[in-house]
């Protein structure tokens, strides 16, 4: 897809180095380190208040780390934030869609904001991928949660981001829609996009992640490559007494 303007140079690895974020005296994220090479799906797992959403906001360049740094390739968000935003897509728990507008109008609007050369064509292609070409001119308020989620995912992908951040993407989806979303995420990663997914739905994402990062009270308590039996691992990690640093369970 031609964006019509000079697209910032892409990056092929996301590196989170010893990142902390404090809100006043409250520690939301403390010394988290992980990386995501091109085409990988990283899961951020942890209970409510573990710091997953704060971590995603920092990755999205919306807030800055209090300490440590996040590198997109060789660039950091502090000095390259605006340029990097064109390479990042975000699907939040709220869907970032205007309910009064049609699906097509929403997609065209965001296509325009991302300076795509032909937002109309991009919107049509996105509707086709979402399987909603025939409902494209209906207001989003008339859609089911699953349909809205599909439009929202295509909105997040309309500018072909290098990094896609998803916050609880399975909330409110029925089994079929959730399975469809899991398959779509795998396809997106296979196309070379890095994905960071924060979720509680461990059964749905079992086998999806290339790397799982376990957070508890803002701290990274474990990291595991290609985790299987995710729920059992999660229970094991979360009930274990906290150690000084994270456990790397890769190869265990």
């Amino acid at each position, binding site marked *: 897809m031609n964006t019509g303007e000079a697209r910032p140079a892409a990056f092929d690895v996301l590196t989170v180095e010893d990142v902390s974020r404090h809100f006043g005296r409250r520690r939301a994220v403390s010394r988290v380190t992980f990386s995501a090479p091109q085409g990988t799906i990283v899961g951020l797992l942890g209970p409510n208040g573990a710091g997953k959403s704060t971590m995603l906001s920092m990755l999205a360049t919306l807030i800055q780390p209090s300490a440590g740094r996040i590198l997109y390739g060789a660039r950091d968000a502090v000095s390259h934030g605006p340029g990097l935003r064109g390479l990042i897509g975000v699907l939040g728990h709220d869907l*970032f869609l205007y309910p009064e507008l049609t699906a097509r109008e929403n997609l065209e609007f965001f296509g325009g904001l991302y300076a795509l050369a032909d937002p109309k064509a991009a919107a049509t292609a996105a509707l086709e991928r979402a399987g909603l070409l025939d409902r494209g001119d209906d207001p989003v308020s008339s859609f089911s949660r699953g349909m809205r989620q599909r439009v929202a995912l295509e909105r997040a992908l309309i500018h072909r981001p290098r990094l896609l951040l998803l916050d609880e993407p399975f909330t409110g989806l029925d089994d079929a829609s959730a399975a469809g979303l899991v398959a779509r995420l795998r396809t997106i990663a296979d196309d070379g996009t890095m994905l960071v997914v924060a979720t509680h739905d461990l059964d749905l994402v079992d086998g999806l992640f290339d790397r799982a990062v376990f957070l508890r009270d803002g701290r990274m308590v474990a990291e595991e490559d290609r985790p299987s039996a995710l729920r059992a691992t999660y229970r094991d990690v979360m009930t274990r007494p906290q150690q000084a640093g994270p456990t790397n369970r890769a190869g265990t």
Partner: protein
Amino acid sequence: MFARVVWLVLRKDLMVEVRSLEIAYTTLFFAVSCVLVFAFALVREGRAPEDGAAGILWISIAFSGTLALGRAFERERQSETLRALLLAPAPRPAVYVGKLLGIVALLAAGEVVLVPLVALLFQAPLFDRPVWLATILLTGTIGFSAVGTLFAAMLVRARSRDVLLPVLLYPITVPVIIAGVRATTTLLQPELEVEVLRFWLALLVCFDVVFVTLALWTFEPLMTD
């Protein structure tokens, strides 16, 4: 890029409003109610108080404008679309200007109804000098909305935003409202004192320049963290 983003945000806001008419109906109802209350309280035996029309017009604009500002950003908060706007690589000051123009357009549409109503109920010759009146209303509305748009965006995540917005907005926009009232009062005199009117208009333009410049300067850092 800047102008295109301004246009996209403005067009989107107008499309959303045309579909829902939520802000138009609520602010207009509130503004008309406000004028009617003043009319019932102040008009005695068909005689309106001298020089009251200008103040009542601007009070109604300010009150209904506060309502419109709150709703315009509440709408962006409900689906977290403000976050989506901030995540785009578009210049954030352009997002601010787009939102500002949307608010100004909405308030201007309300003023089209308010001005004849005030003129009728308070027997004020508001339409004797329509170009001057339009200039005063436009410059005053821009000044009020410039501060209001910035504060409404800042407060969008605050729990008590509905209380904080007027508390913060009115003290800062008092100079704009006073200048608007004085300019309109001057306009309503039988003999137009052009120099006096120019003074108040120049003051309104100064406020507009200062408020818009400050808002453009501070919007990006205020929205970043």
